[in-house]
């Protein structure tokens, strides 16, 4: 049980948050043939592109309506129209994700209303699906923007009729899942004989592969045809608390029942995933996963020595914090410092005394109060803090720019959990609080007190 604390602070030092529009753009990276567009000044886009390029090491398609001082005051509808037309002519995308920013939201633009007018008077745009999402920077963080963008996709992209059910399952992964995680979920669903319809699917776009030519939109991801077929699925599995909202919207639109899994890392949640898929498909759990479950349990038996009593400091978006925090505490570790980006109510169940809504400076303070820690789990922006304190840092979340393969690492499923336990155990071993020194009973010293 944790107390969630949001200290009123005028100054954020070394922010943990990443902006909501970036989270929205990230979600659109998981749609096939998509080109997201920020309605804001060009810097908003430039910073987001750089951050995503550093994390994924891939070209990132993202455009801007290039608002300046005058268009901001007069209204940005013309800029939106021009941008949509220019993008359509130059890149010919199938989808454009139109994301508002703090700038246009502060002015109070009616982006959706404007969009209806624009689409009405430009037949050129008939062939492209434009999905608008309101993602002002001043509201929430990366997770918020991701969730809003997925919800907008479900609202705006066409759905097929609910004629008959097919052997398929919808999966709505949260922003804390890597393309590697999504790939794992894809494989698991398929092994149950179910076709997974994943929205959004970063594993097709940002898994790091070589396309056959130069493509100026996303390199893969969920196609519009697959989104249309989501209405025929047997079940929608949402991963992460922030995907509950989008999953509910999908249920209301299509009638497909919803199962929200708080995470897909750890023995218990993966058990729930397996049981759900077995029930939905009417097939037994494949032998491969029965074997993997036993491998995971063996890893937990071997790994508990490394975790027991070790002090872990954590920083991340609510669902990442939850997933990591639960795993390390289930292995016997102690979360002594936890910082997140939003006061998500479900974090009241988090295995720590307190969860602070704040920045890396707050984390620093927490670690001091706890009398130090053995391992830090956070994104790469924690590396300064880790360096100053001489702490081991396990990089997780966004952005991870100083290690390769952040996008490919999987912690989902039995196998992903097993590998994550091994990696964390290794990091804890390197952190080396188990250095053995000779313990002497010195009578002279004892006498001196």
């Amino acid at each position: 049980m944790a107390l969630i604390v949001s200290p009123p602070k005028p100054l954020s030092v070394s922010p943990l948050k990443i902006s909501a529009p970036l989270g929205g753009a990230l979600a659109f990276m998981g749609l096939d043939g998509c080109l997201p567009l920020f309605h804001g000044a060009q810097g908003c886009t430039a910073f987001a592109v750089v951050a995503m390029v550093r994390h994924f090491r891939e070209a990132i398609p993202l455009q801007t309506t290039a608002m300046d001082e005058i268009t901001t005051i007069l209204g940005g509808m013309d800029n939106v129209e021009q941008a949509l037309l220019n993008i359509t002519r130059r890149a010919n995308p199938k989808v454009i994700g139109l994301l508002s920013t703090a700038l246009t939201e502060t002015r109070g633009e009616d982006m959706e209303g404007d969009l209806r007018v624009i689409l009405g008077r430009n037949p050129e745009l008939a062939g492209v699906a434009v999905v608008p999402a309101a993602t002002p920077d001043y509201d929430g963080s990366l997770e918020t923007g991701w969730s809003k963008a997925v919800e907008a996709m479900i609202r705006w992209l066409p759905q097929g009729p609910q004629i008959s059910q097919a052997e398929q399952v919808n999966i709505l992964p949260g922003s804390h899942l890597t393309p590697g995680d999504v790939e794992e979920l894809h494989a698991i669903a398929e092994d149950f004989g179910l076709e997974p319809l994943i929205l959004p699917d970063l594993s097709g776009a940002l898994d790091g592969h070589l396309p056959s030519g130069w493509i100026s939109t996303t390199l893969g991801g969920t196609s519009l045809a697959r989104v249309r077929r989501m209405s025929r699925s047997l079940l929608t599995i949402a991963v992460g608390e922030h995907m509950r909202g989008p999953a509910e919207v999908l249920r209301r639109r299509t009638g497909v029942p919803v199962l929200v899994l708080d995470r897909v890392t750890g023995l218990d949640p993966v058990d729930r995933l397996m049981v759900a898929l077995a029930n939905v498909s009417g097939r037994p759990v494949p032998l491969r996963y029965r074997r993997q479950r036993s491998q995971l349990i063996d890893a937990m038996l071997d790994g508990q020595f490394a975790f027991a009593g070790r002090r872990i400091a954590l920083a991340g978006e609510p669902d990442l914090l939850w997933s990591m925090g639960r795993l390390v505490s289930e292995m016997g570790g102690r979360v002594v410092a936890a910082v997140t980006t939003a006061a998500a109510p479900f974090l009241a169940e988090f295995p720590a005394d307190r969860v602070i809504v704040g920045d890396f400076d707050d984390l620093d303070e927490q670690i001091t109060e706890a009398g130090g820690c053995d391992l830090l789990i956070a994104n790469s922006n924690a590396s300064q803090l880790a360096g100053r304190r001489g702490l081991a840092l396990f990089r997780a979340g966004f952005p991870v720019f100083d290690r390769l393969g952040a996008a490919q690492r999987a912690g989902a499923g039995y196998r992903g959990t097993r590998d994550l336990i091994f990696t964390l155990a290794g990091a804890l071993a390197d952190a080396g609080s188990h250095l053995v020194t000779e313990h002497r009973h010195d009578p002279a010293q004892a006498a001196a007190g």
Partner: protein
Amino acid sequence: MLKRKVQELMNEPGCATNRAKSTAEKKKGCGAKRLLPGAAAGGCAYDGAKIALQPITDAVHLVHGPLACEGNSWDSRNAASSGCTLYRRGFTTDLSELDIIHGGERKLYQAIRAAAERFWPPAIFVYQTCVTALIGDDVEAVCREASKRLGLPVIPVVAPGFAGSKNLGNRLGGEALLDHVIGTVEPGDAGPHDINILGEYNLAGELWQIRPLLDRLGIRVRACITGDSRYVEVASAHRARAAIMLCSQAMVTLARKMRERWDIPYVEGSFYGIQDTSDTLRGIVRLLVDRGGDPDLLTRADALVAEEERRAWARLDNFAPRLAGRKVLLYTGGVKSWSVVSALKEIGMEVIGTSVRKSTPEDKERAKALLGEEGSTFDAIPNAEMYRMLKAGEADILLSGGRTQFVALKSRTPWLDINQERHHAYAGYDGMVELVRQIDLTLNNPVWAAVRRPDPWDADGRPLEAPSWL
């Protein structure tokens, strides 16, 4: 106020490109070309101002705005410091919806005070952003008041993102230094051979390739604006005797105004390329001697240049057998185009083309003359076309910035970063040798042969080779 400043900056008499324009063209201003919605790339004015000032390592750089401006980008530049690390922390007021409704001035003041009390920096730079400009937060007034109450310089940097391009922001950053910083501290140790370096940000530690050369001549860098600088150095920059202006488009206004206000002449120079480094060193020495410096400097500089050039060429010659005849596509802007071309040609590499996007007409002429018959100059190449060129093997290596990194890598072509995100320092004589060494390491890496191996199966996945065991 901002509008007047922008107009003034866009018509810079010190800029060669601007001087060459007709009156009507001048009126339009430089960079006035409107950004095209849906087809724009690059940073905003705030980005530019931050790049120009953040290398002041001991200051707090506080961004007044919603999260994205600082949250998405802090500590992402590779400007190195020889000591302080305060500049690498991100500071922002991270405005919420309520802050925006009520106005952010109060929160800004509290943030400035919190930063002052926690870190005791010599100064705090406060950056205006689009949203706080739009809601009318008077950043200048808050800074004035905070400065008075807290007893330390609090400098407003008025360059909201939507004011224009990154380049404009660089200049607005320079204006903030002129209006609030330079000339506010009197140094106790001004000497006859003190200079400023303008427009050098110590990316990957390049200043440290330049400063030793100046040291050997007995020239002291009073202030580098702003690479690896301390606040007090910049504040006392007005006592330098001369200046070197690098990265000319960004800092030309600052250089001209420092000449007018404090009588500090400047030489436009570059430390990219051997000839350029020598020319720049000779240029600054001449300025110092003109201003009453030791006349002996001239001969000392000649001797240094001769020795360093000999040493550099001797080292570069070692690479010639490994690089001669290999084809380079150079895709960058400004002075780097021609200053790198001459060195590459000297060791026998073939430069098949160079972009001249941000270059002045003079730069373009120089690049053309250098390239000769086989090479061509161009403004911009669309990504798809560049991908085709590289895939077809028209170049053996692409030297460019991060934006075209994946055009090269996805076409399995060697690529070297020579723009701001680079991790190697390429300035001065040693830097040129390092650049060629990096080209050698990249181009001759055995990995290229491996990654270009075709799939051992056909389009349907059927093996192309018959089984060897039959």
